C-alpha cells in the first residue's frame, strides 16, 4: 500500500460540462475517499420570487438549467396551479407531457454523447448530438425556441400544435428511431464500450435505497421509482407505464437504462398523440395565491425526481419557492459509487449520474 495522496478534480476538467469539485484521496491508483464541493455557480434564483411575479417567474424557472429547462417551467407551473386550484384543459396537459418527453429524449441523447466523449468514442458523441439536433428542430418549429422554450403559462400552454403537425412529429420520431437503434447497437454491443463500463461504479439496490437515489441512476440499481408512475397530468392516461429497470447497478446498466428510456419516451409521445383531446389549450390564470397557501409537487425530470414547494402570501409574488433537484439527491450516491474505483474510471462514474450542477445550486 502506498501513501494516500489528494488529487483535486474539477471544477474545470475536460469531461465535466459543469463545475463540480472533488477531492479524490487516492492510494496508488485506487480512490479511497471522495469529498465533493459545489457552490461555484450559485445564482440565488429562488430569492427572485420576491421581485418577479408568479407569471414572470416561469422565465426564471426555465433558466435554472439549460437542458431540463422545459421540465422546470412545467414543475413550477404545476405547483402554482395547485396553489391556486387552477384547472388545466386536457389538451394542454397532453401537450406539456409531449414537450417534456421530447426534452427527455434530447437530454438523454446529450448525455449519451457526453458519456461517449468521456470514454473516448468521439464518433459516437458526434452521432448522438446529430440526432439530438433533430429534436431541437422540433422544439424550434413548435415553440419558437430551441433550448429555452417559454411554452408553458400558469393555466395552460402558450401555443397549440396542430393535429397534422403532431402526426408529423411522430413520423419524424419514428425516422429517428432507426438511426437511434444503430447508435444503441454501438453502446450496448460494442466491445470497447463494454470494456470501459461493465462492473465500474457498482451500487447495490440496498445502497441506492439507503442513499435515496433518484432517476435513471436509481433505476439502474433496480429501485422501481419513477414519478411518472404517479400519473399526474397526461401521464395518468397512459395505458401501461412501467419504469425501466436493471439489476446490474454499474455504469453499463445506467447507459442501458437511459438508452431504453429514449424509446419509451417515443412510445409515450406516440400514444398521447393518438388520443389527444380537443378542449383548448387554457389561458393565463388571473388568480393570485392566497395568503399562507402551500403546495408541493414532484416531477420526473430526465435526471430523476425534482421536488417543488411554493407558499403564497396573498400578493402576486410568492412568499417562498423551493426546488430540490435530482443532482443534489444523487451526489451522495455518486460519492459512494466512486469509493474504491480506479482513478481512470472516475470521469465515467461522475458522468453516469448525469450531474447538473447548475440545477443543483440554482
Amino acid at each position: 500500500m502506498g501513501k494516500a495522496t489528494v488529487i483535486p478534480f474539477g471544477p474545470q476538467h475536460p469531461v465535466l460540462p459543469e463545475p463540480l469539485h472533488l477531492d479524490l484521496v487516492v492510494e496508488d491508483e485506487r480512490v479511497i475517499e471522495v469529498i465533493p464541493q459545489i457552490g461555484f455557480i450559485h445564482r440565488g434564483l429562488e430569492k427572485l420570487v420576491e421581485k418577479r411575479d408568479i407569471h414572470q417567474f416561469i422565465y426564471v424557472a426555465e433558466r435554472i438549467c439549460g437542458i431540463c429547462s422545459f421540465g422546470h417551467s412545467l414543475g413550477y407551473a404545476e405547483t402554482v396551479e395547485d396553489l391556486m386550484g387552477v384547472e388545466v384543459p386536457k389538451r394542454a396537459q397532453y401537450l406539456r407531457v409531449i414537450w417534456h418527453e421530447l426534452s427527455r429524449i434530447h437530454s438523454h441523447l446529450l448525455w449519451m454523447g457526453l458519456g461517449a466523449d468521456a470514454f473516448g468514442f468521439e464518433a459516437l458523441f458526434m452521432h448522438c448530438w446529430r440526432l439530438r439536433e433533430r429534436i431541437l428542430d422540433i422544439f424550434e418549429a413548435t415553440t419558437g425556441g430551441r433550448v429555452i422554450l417559454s411554452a408553458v403559462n400558469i393555466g395552460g400552454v402558450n401555443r397549440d400544435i396542430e393535429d397534422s403537425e403532431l402526426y408529423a412529429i411522430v413520423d419524424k420520431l419514428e425516422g429517428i428511431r432507426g438511426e437511434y437503434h444503430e447508435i444503441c447497437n454501438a453502446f450496448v454491443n460494442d466491445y470497447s464500450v463494454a470494456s470501459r463500463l461493465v462492473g465500474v461504479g457498482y451500487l447495490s439496490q440496498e445502497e441506492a435505497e439507503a442513499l435515496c437515489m433518484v432517476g435513471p441512476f436509481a433505476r439502474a440499481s433496480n429501485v422501481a421509482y419513477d414519478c411518472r408512475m404517479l400519473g399526474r397530468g397526461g401521464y395518468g392516461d397512459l395505458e401501461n407505464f412501467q419504469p425501466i429497470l436493471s439489476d446490474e447497478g454499474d455504469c453499463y446498466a445506467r447507459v442501458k437504462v437511459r438508452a431504453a428510456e429514449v424509446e419509451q419516451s417515443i412510445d409515450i409521445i406516440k400514444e398521447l398523440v393518438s388520443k389527444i383531446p380537443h378542449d383548448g389549450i387554457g389561458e393565463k390564470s388571473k388568480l393570485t395565491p392566497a395568503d399562507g397557501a402551500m403546495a408541493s409537487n414532484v416531477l420526473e425530470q430526465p435526471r430523476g425526481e425534482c421536488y417543488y414547494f411554493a407558499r403564497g402570501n396573498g400578493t402576486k409574488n410568492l412568499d417562498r419557492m423551493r426546488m430540490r433537484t435530482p443532482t443534489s439527491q444523487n451526489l451522495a450516491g455518486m460519492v459512494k459509487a466512486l469509493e474504491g474505483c480506479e482513478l481512470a474510471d472516475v470521469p465515467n462514474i461522475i458522468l453516469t449520474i448525469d450531474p447538473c450542477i447548475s440545477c443543483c445550486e440554482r
Partner: protein
Amino acid sequence: MGSFKLGKMTLRSLFGKPETVLYPVQTRPMPEGLKGHVSNNIEECILCGICQKRCPTEAITVDKKAGTWSVDGFRCIQCGACVRECPKHSLTMEPTYTAPAATKTAFTMNKPQPSEEELAAKAAEREARIAAAKAAKAAREAAKEQDA
C-alpha cells in the same frame, strides 16, 4: 459483443451531405413561429405600457408623453409575454434574430404625430358632432314643451 459497431453509420456520413452549414456564409431557414425579436406596429400601438409592466427583464420602455416605444434587444429574452398581453395586438415576434452589434443600444420607435391638417380635420369633426348633439337636444326639448 464485437467492435466497429458504428461503422455503417460513419461510412454513410462520410459520403453524405454535411449536417452543418457554413455560417455566416450560409444560414438555415428560419421556421415560421421562431421567436427572433419583438417588433411593434406603431400605427396600431396606443402606448398603454402593459408590455412594459409584463416584461420580465424590463427591456421595453414606453413613454406616452414623448410618444415613443423602445425595446432593448440585448435585454430581451424573447419570451413573448408582451406579444400575448398586447390589447391592440400591435406587437409581433419576427422570425429573425437580433443582429450582432458592437454597442448595446435600444431600438426606439416614434408614434407618428398627426399633421396640422389632420388635427384641424379632427377638431372640425368634433365641433360638428357637438353642434349636431346640441341641435338634437334643442329639438327634443321643443318636442317636450309641445307635449306639455
